[in-house]
């Protein structure tokens, strides 16, 4: 296709992405390199319904003058990236030097907010993604072997976890898994432990969030794999059967390779989405036990703190993290693209 024609075709979508994603990303990256000016204090008297007190306040005029001079703020360079709320280079160095053992070092790391969040985010991503792919695959195979009149209804109900929005879905489940709720009581009965509460321990909260993640995303994998199964070439299967392959061997050597491109697609999308996990943590009120990178951003942007540079930095770190995670898949796509020509 000629360059000029290509340009006109791609223009609408490129403009939209440029304006609403590219420019904000650049602005966010810029913001992560600057911090607000040093605040000028003054002591003032505050009076209210409960009497008067002396307290410190910001000298608005002096700060305004500073802001007028340099509107972006102070240049901090990589300062925010390396500070305690993010990569915490100094603290990690200290912990490494003063460690008693690797366990001790990991314990000190877990004390730092970014690494605590990374711990959960990576565990979540690398547990949920393979599990949801496996579950989606098994559901697809099972549904495929059903009687055709049942298929419609089953597909229809299987999609439910995916079509309810995550915030509301996790809220509903939060109500149900409470130790006095129906699922909570059910689990207590199942494990014969009357004191079992999913919300009370960190380990169980992580398990609960992971189970929710798999439950919510499996239908997406199911739909994609199910569609792929419809195009499975019957002749290859037949010849495998004639050659004496067992059912399991047929699955392993015919079905799975056929679905491989789809697995790559699902893995790509899900790795990215799971790394940015956020809604379940809010929906399950789980921040005492599990935080994620997106949750840190949300917290920083909150009304009373407004740590904009910090949030910008964590966002950039998230993008870098996703790029690193996706690099194997991207390399594979590059190879496909080059060979295809």
């Amino acid at each position, binding site marked *: *296709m000629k360059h000029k024609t290509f340009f006109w075709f791609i223009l609408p979508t490129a403009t939209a992405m440029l304006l609403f994603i590219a420019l904000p990303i650049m602005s966010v990256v810029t913001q992560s390199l600057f911090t607000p000016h040093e605040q000028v204090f003054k002591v003032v008297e505050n009076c209210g319904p409960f009497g008067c007190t002396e307290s410190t306040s910001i000298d608005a005029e002096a700060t305004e003058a500073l802001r007028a001079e340099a509107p972006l703020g102070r240049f901090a360079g990589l300062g925010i990236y390396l500070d305690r709320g993010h990569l915490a280079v100094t603290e990690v160095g200290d912990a490494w030097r003063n460690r008693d053992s690797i366990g001790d070092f990991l314990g000190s790391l877990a004390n730092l907010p970014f690494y605590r969040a990374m711990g959960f985010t990576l565990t979540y991503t690398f547990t949920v993604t393979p599990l949801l792919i496996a579950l989606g695959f098994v559901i697809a195979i099972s549904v495929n072997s059903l009687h055709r009149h049942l298929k419609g209804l089953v597909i229809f109900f*299987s999609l439910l976890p995916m079509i309810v929005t995550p915030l509301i879905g996790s809220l509903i489940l939060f109500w149900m898994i409470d130790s006095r709720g129906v699922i909570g009581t059910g689990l207590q009965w199942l494990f014969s432990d009357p004191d079992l509460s999913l919300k009370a321990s960190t380990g169980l909260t992580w398990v609960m969030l992971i189970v929710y993640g798999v439950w919510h995303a499996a239908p997406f994998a199911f739909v994609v794999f199910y569609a792929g199964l419809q195009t499975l070439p019957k002749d290859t299967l037949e010849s495998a059967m004639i050659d004496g392959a067992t059912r399991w061997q047929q699955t392993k050597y015919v079905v799975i390779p056929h679905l491989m491109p789809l697995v790559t697609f699902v893995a790509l999308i899900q790795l990215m989405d799971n790394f940015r996990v956020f809604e379940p943590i809010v929906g399950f009120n789980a921040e005492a036990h599990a935080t994620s990178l997106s949750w840190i951003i949300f917290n920083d942007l909150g009304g009373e703190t407004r740590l904009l540079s910090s949030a910008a930095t964590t966002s950039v770190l998230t993008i870098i993290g996703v790029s690193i995670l996706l690099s194997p898949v991207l390399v594979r796509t590059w190879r496909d693209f080059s060979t295809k020509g």
Partner: protein
Amino acid sequence: MSVKAFKQPPALRTLSTAFVVIWLILAAFPFLWTLWGSFKVELDFFSKGDWTDSLTGVRTIAEHGSAFTDNGYEGAWIQEEFWRAVFNTAIVCFFVVTISLTFGTLGGYALSRSSYRYTFWLLITALIFRAMPPITLVSGYLLPFFEWNLWGILPTTIIVLVAINQPFTLWMLHSFFQKIPKELDESAKVDGCSQFQAFRHVIIPIMWPGVITTGLFSFLLAYNDFAVTSMLLSKENQTMVPKIASFLGTTQTEGNVMFAVAAVVSATAPLFVLVMFFQRQIVSGLTQGAVKG
């Protein structure tokens, strides 16, 4: 070869059916429980004393005389005017899907027909764009939108949703178009059509399965969106999901929680109809494309 050869042995069949049943229960149970509970009062559905209250409706009977009450639905739809939110969602979804597909088909088609290196880099860039946490994006929009008086109105939200979902749309449509043989539009061009005419007369009639599938995913993304709609819409213009979240609010006044429950059920019902109606298209569309990674 006869179909009989493909039939599963009975043991495998039972296992497979059992698995499907278990999965169905897991998938549908929370929703059915919510559906049942939406006809109860708050202290039955969220009973901290005894979970069976939600089944029997003890306090619902005490308050309303019968085990079922439409209080939640009445409150949400009539008192809080949930129908406005439904109307807003309809507008937003319709425009997001149409604009998104228009931009996406043009872009995806161009990406699939161009053989230069920059195509790959554009796709990768789009993917990296998708990696940006939506909260940061939306917070960044607030200040400019307020300054230019664009905050709170539906068109702004529509354009933002279109733009944010472009990467996903582009990737899906790009792979669909790759499956359509290049020879079709090449021959049209040989016959004297411009690229756009080739696209319009040759490709558009056959691209529908892929487009419908992508459209459905776009629709779901717009329908269920919370991050963008909750921050960029004013009270009157809210779509369904932020409206439900607003019922929950900070002080969860008595009754408002049940409005949220009733609204959640109401919000999911049209999706059932949609899935039922389009399930063949979803499956066949994905088949046609066999979306590549």
